[in-house]
Each structure stands twice: as C-alpha cells, then as structure tokens.
C-alpha cells in the first residue's frame, strides 16, 4: 500500500514537471460540512466553503490577498447498500458580482478494510451562470484513509487522508482535464466531529493551453447533528 501511494505520488508530480510553465495561485480554503441524518438510509449534507488567494502570479504585478468566492452546497444522500450511496444536490456560488448555479449527482462507495478505508466517488455536475457558457464535468475521486495508531481510527486519534481526483471538463464545445491531489492530516474529536487540514493541489487546462496550478491550504470541519 505504501509503495502504491509512493508510485501514485511520483507519477503525479512527475507529470507536473512537464507542465513547469504555468500560472499558479496560493490560498486558503476553509470548509464546514454539516450532516443531518433524516432516517436510517437518508441524510442531508450542507457545506459552506470559501476561497481566499494570498498570492497570484497571473497578475502583473503579482497580486496578494484577494477574496475569491463562497460556495453553499446542499446534498440529499440515500443509502442504496451497506457501503454505497446515491447523492444529489445543488451548489450556489457567490463570486464577486457573479452568481453561479450547479446541479450535482454522485455515487459513492466506502470500503472498510483491515487497517484502512478506501472510498470511490463518481460524480457529474452541471454549472450555469449568466456570464459564462454552461460547463459539464465528469469526476472520479479515490480516497484513502489510514489511521496513524491502531487498525482503525478511534475518537481522539489522528489519521492520514489522501484524495486523488480526475475531472473531465466540457465547455464551449471543447474538453479538458483537471487533476487534484489532496493529502490531509485528520483528527477525530469524537464520533460526530472530525477536523482535517492539508493541501488541495489542483492543475487545470491540462490538455489545452497554459496550465493553471492552485495550492489551497484547507481547514475542514465535518460535523454530524
């Protein structure tokens, strides 16, 4: 498992070296995810996420602090198996003077194996705003969660989580690819609360044009009511 992780990271960062000429942003991404169980198989998931850039080398001169956007998302989750769910929902984004609407559909599987958990998420989303053409994405994300102590994460224990996501993007009759890699350090306060922090690395315009790299420092709180 460690060798596989190392190989994935090497391939990932090796690929990035090919795109050495690129624009990049450094910023902060705080996120709160609040889950409300409705019944044994259903729950509502609300999240608020904002982005703030501290350095942007695409501007001349390079720009320092700028507030970017806030996302408000609500998803309805329905369990279709002991470890599978179908989720659907809506995102409302405020980006300066721009309002963005996004519809979201997801299928998730979480496998609890000895010593770690592995998750798969396949998603599609459709993004609409009055200033840009509709954007359609197909996404796949793999998540690995490994306890630092013991064979499973218990309350008041740390863990490592790594997300790797691939997004196929279609807009204006052309397609592109975005890659994301997110290594996090997590801490389970109790059964209903987890805090995670780490890097959300994104590279887009992968196929066409000059690629853009984003480095977000993430602070996440997952809480269940």
């Amino acid at each position, binding site marked *: 498992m460690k060798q596989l992780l190392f190989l994935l990271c090497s391939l990932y960062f090796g690929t990035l070296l090919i795109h050495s000429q690129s624009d990049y942003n450094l910023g902060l991404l705080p996120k709160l*995810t609040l*889950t409300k169980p409705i019944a*044994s*198989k259903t729950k509502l*998931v609300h*999240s608020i996420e904002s982005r703030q850039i501290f350095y942007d080398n695409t501007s001349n001169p390079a720009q320092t602090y700028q507030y970017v956007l806030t996302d408000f998302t609500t*998803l309805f*989750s329905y*369990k279709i*198996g*002991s*470890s599978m*769910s179908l*989720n659907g929902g809506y995102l409302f984004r405020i980006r300066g003077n721009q309002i963005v609407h996004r519809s979201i559909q*997801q299928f*998730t599987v*979480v496998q*609890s194996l000895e010593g770690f*958990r592995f*998750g798969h*998420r396949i998603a599609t989303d459709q993004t609409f705003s009055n200033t840009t053409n509709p954007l359609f994405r197909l996404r796949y994300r793999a*998540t690995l*969660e490994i306890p630092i*102590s*013991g*064979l*499973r*994460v*218990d309350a008041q224990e740390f863990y490592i*989580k790594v997300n790797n996501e691939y997004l196929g993007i279609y807009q204006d009759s052309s397609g592109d690819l975005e890659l994301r890699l997110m290594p996090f350090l*997590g801490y389970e306060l109790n*059964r*209903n609360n*987890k805090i*995670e922090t780490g890097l959300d690395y994104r590279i887009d315009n992968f196929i066409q044009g000059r690629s853009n790299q984003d480095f977000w420092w993430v602070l*996440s709180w*997952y809480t*269940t009511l």
Partner: protein
Amino acid sequence: MTLNKSTLIILFFLVQLAASAQVKFEKEKRVKSSDVPKSATTWIDSLPFTHKIKWYKEISQDGTSYEAKTCLHKTKYSIEFTATGQLIDVELQTPFRKLNEAVKKEIEEVLTKNYDKYSIQKTQEQYIGNKDSVGKLIIDKNTRSELTKNYELIVKVKEDGDYKTYEITFDNEVKLIKKLVVDQRRSDNIEF
C-alpha cells in the same frame, strides 16, 4: 409432529439471532513488544512465525487485552492475551468457502432465514485452549479435541430495510454464542 435435530438447532438460533444484540465496543492501539507482558511475548517468540509480529493493546466490552497479529503460510493469525499475559484465544482468518461443508450450509441457512440480504466480510476460526495445544495447532494446523473451536464472522446484512454490520460467533455445533452490532464510523469525510 416430530422435529429433527437440524431443524431444532436452526430454530434455536433463529430465536437467538432475532434477540437484540449488544453494540461492539473496541479501541485498539499499536504498542511495542516491550509494553506487553513478558509471558506473552516469550511464548509468541517461541513459535515459528516468520513475519513481523505487530502488538496491539485493545480495550473492549470484555476488558483490556493484548493482541499479536502476524501471518504464517499465508494465514493471518490474531493471538489474544489478558492484561497479565494469559492466553485467551487464537484466531485464524479463513475464507468462508473453505469451511467444512456442513458448517457452511448451516450458517448460510440461518443467515438467509434471518436477514433480507447478507454479505460475509470476514471469517475466523477461533481456538481456545492451553498454550501447549494452541502452540501445536499453530505449528501443524491440525485441530485437537482439547481445543474449543468457534467461528467468528463479520456479516453485513439488510434487516427490516436497514443496513447493519454484525460480529456473530458460533460454536463448533453452529449454535450462537454471541452477536454484536459493529458500530460503523461515519464516512462523511470520505464521501463528501
């Protein structure tokens, strides 16, 4: 109407399985072998394990214990000791399909009758006995009459429309000994 022995056994366990189950509580932490009672580590070191031995301290509904986990001839072993180093049991992970046919059939019948759907995630053969007999079992993998043999299964089920995970322990006659609900950790940080 007379009932044969198999029917009686199945009826007995249907009643048992229908009864409400306790929630499994278990918290384990990796520890160094120097933190484990010497009587346990000395005995483990005398056995022909070739893979690394990982030691865990476990707090559960049964109390505090130490567990050695390792692998021998492609079989995963968990050997549990009390807090003072007394041997509790040894568990060998076994594919369900490799169990004795009669045992498999009885277990499947019970699970089918009790649950809308089920999926066996893990099967372990559990042996309880003295160190000599357990040691010989580990060396030659032959069951001995002086050892008590049980079967411990982790089963995901659909029951009354709900999805649950149980740890179910049967004795060698496939009678229910224990049924615990395995509390699934929240996975919101993985799904969303």
